[in-house]
């Protein structure tokens, strides 16, 4: 408002007083600045609070996705024991004496390197009327359950012996630098002319399953190494799927294995194929790479019953000598 005349002043002017400086340098302009800053901060806080509560969420409510590669499941793979050797002992197929030799062979090798063994018999697991040869899958799954801290599970079926006690599975074969040299990339999964090939650029860190193929029927499930972890459980449980068990695969679990590797990329991208000499050398005339001295394993894929005992006699003596010497 403007007045023609200024308002009358009081006749008793107040004595001139400097306002008490409560805060040094806290003048009106500063007060304004402080007020504005406060208002600004308040607005920001309000915005955050309001939008947070309206959209809530926030980054902590949605937990961050797990890292791209979870190598091992909870507790898996610390290497205690480093390797569990799984063997299914089928007394209907082999003689008692022979199986005793097999058991002794595994136990001695395991003791030598601080590994553990797990022996199963076909009746141990409910297969839901599937062929007894399927027993190996729940047996390996059982090994993962019993030894949750193991690094690897090595399945070696009863038709074979460990021949070279000096080779350590976890160091001489499965150590990444070593495995990198051994694994065969870009080869057909089912030889000779399978369309599906192992990955050409497979990194050794991604390998969860190491297995071999022989010259006659493709993949071999007689001797393979599986790394402990979530993938291993997924793989075994998928392999053991009831629809695979009930399907009339000609060679039961081996063909089911070939099937899942060729049809499912999450499995194919985790397997490495190695030479038979590494894990799964065959004896003479069995139609695969032939055993030579120094190989870890010799296998007799065709033998059964009493014949097996005589056929393998020479090898049993050989591994006993080698184990005694080492």
């Amino acid at each position, binding site marked *: 408002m*403007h*007045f*023609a005349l200024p308002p009358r002043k009081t006749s008793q002017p107040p004595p001139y007083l400097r306002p008490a400086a409560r805060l040094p340098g806290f003048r009106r302009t500063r007060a304004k600045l402080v007020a504005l800053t406060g*208002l600004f901060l308040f*607005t920001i806080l*309000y*915005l*955050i609070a*309001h*939008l*947070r509560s*309206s*959209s*809530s*969420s*926030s*980054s902590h*409510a*949605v*937990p961050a*996705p*797990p890292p*791209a*590669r*979870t190598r091992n499941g*909870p507790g898996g793979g610390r290497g205690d024991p480093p390797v569990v050797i799984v063997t299914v002992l089928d007394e209907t197929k082999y003689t008692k004496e022979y199986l005793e030799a097999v058991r002794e062979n595994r136990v001695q090798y395991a003791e030598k390197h601080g590994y553990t063994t797990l022996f199963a018999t076909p009746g141990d*697991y*409910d297969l839901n009327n599937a062929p007894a040869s399927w027993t190996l899958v*729940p*047996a390996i*799954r*059982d090994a*993962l*359950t019993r030894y*949750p801290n193991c690094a690897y599970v090595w399945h070696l079926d009863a038709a074979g012996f460990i021949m070279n006690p000096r080779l350590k599975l976890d160091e001489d074969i499965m150590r990444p630098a070593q495995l990198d040299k051994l694994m065969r990339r870009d080869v057909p999964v089912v030889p000779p002319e399978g369309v599906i090939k192992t990955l050409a650029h497979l990194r050794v860190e991604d390998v969860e399953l190491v297995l071999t193929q022989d010259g006659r029927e493709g993949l071999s499930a007689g001797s393979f190494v599986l790394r402990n972890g*979530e*993938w291993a*459980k*997924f793989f075994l*449980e*998928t392999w053991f*799927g*009831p*629809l*695979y068990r*009930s*399907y009339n695969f000609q060679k039961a679990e081996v063909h*089911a294995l070939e*099937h899942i590797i060729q*049809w*499912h*990329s*999450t*499995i194919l991208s985790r397997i490495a194929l190695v030479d038979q000499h590494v894990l799964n050398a065959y004896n003479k005339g069995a139609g695969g790479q032939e055993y030579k001295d120094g190989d870890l394993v010799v296998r007799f894929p065709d033998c059964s019953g009493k014949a097996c005992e005589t056929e393998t006699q020479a090898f049993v003596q050989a591994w006993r000598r080698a184990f005694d010497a080492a």
Partner: protein
Amino acid sequence: MSLSRSTSPIPGGGWATPGLDITGGRSSPTRALSGTPAMWQQSSRLGRNHGGGGYGGGSNHNNRYPSFSTRTQGFFGRHMRRLSNSLPRFNSSPYYADKEKLGRERWSAQNATLPGRIRSILGRMGRKMKTRLLFLLILLSLLVFFNSPGTAFVYWWRRSSWFGGGEKFVIVIGANVGGGVMDWKGGKEWAIERHSLRNKKQYARRWGYDLEIVDMKTKKRYAHEWREGWEKADFMRQALKKYPEAEWFWWLDLTTYIMEPSYSLQRHIFSDLTKHVYRDINEFNPLNISHPFTDPYLDAESRSPVGDGRPESINLLLSQDCSGFNLGSFFFRRSEWTDRLLDIWWDPVAYEQRHMEWPHKEQDALEELYTSHPWIRKHTAFLPQRMINSFPEGACAKEDGARDERFHYDKKDRDFVVNMAGCEFGRDCWAELSGFKDLSYYLNRSWWERFKEDVVAVAWKKVAGRKVKL
């Protein structure tokens, strides 16, 4: 206006000097350059009028009267100055710029730029007024930010992983089902598609999510009887690849409608997963799946009814209806587990054996996987159906037609999403969808819409006797 300052110039006007040519009370120049003093122009015009006599026709008829006599003129006379000042000006004669008089037009508003004008207005304003205005401005901007979903600011705010986290969610919706191959796509089908997609678009936009519309037209590669309905898994994989930042993906069928767009996924479900989900299927088990596994060779986690029990281990989140799993609306999370599931889901060996028994294709296959694979079970969780997937009463209907609390939409509870499952089999999809669309609008009207429809329209009806749509 105070007369105490009668000698001051009126902002925007010239001198109100009596005796000069004041045509209709106007004192501002008509064709002045921004540097031209108004007075000079007026006097020059006056001079010209006197000399030439032909200028402006009859415009100088009252130039002998003092200016205050113009108060008695009509509306235009009285407001001419204000009106003319608001008109745009054009500078066509630059030679009027007179350096000598430059100093005199500092008060003149005609040359002030917009910021200058604002500054001068602010300068004349009191501090109190300024604070009030500031408050008003802040209030207004807050209103704009919060009450207009879809403004860019809110969108990016809600999207950012720091604040809203909307970029962690992707809605995948299968459109163009059948693609007009299996069935003639008529007007109703187009309308269903349009309205359903619009609903999801608005929802995604409101909360800063991504929306992926996939074209489910019948393709040859899925035409084999073993492979029908299998696009879903492939599209899910594509979405995972396309949105590498996102974590949760929400699959929605086309015949769904988000009834409550004001619910964010975060608040509705994901902020507190443990509270909403159940992992032990025994809580509601229409398929009678025996749970948990009892095989002795499995580890404790696989045999536990709730997996490891932590919400972080949930990778698949779905609901069950009266007949088992329902994949009309479900969530999956980016993880290696999900990659594996999508890979294993379709398998030719399983299909060769079961395709005759599996009318619901991928839904049945998932049930089979859940039943037999421990690794699937321990990462799957369920939501009560009505949290994400309410049914209309036509689906899962009982013989007596009664509603079932577990399945059927109830507007009292403001269910989130409705899924017109199976409406293409003997029910009217379009009627159901448009019904729910209208209901959703009705339930979520703004105060203005309520005012219009509940007060104005009703009053109008009473007065005019007929319904009116506002």
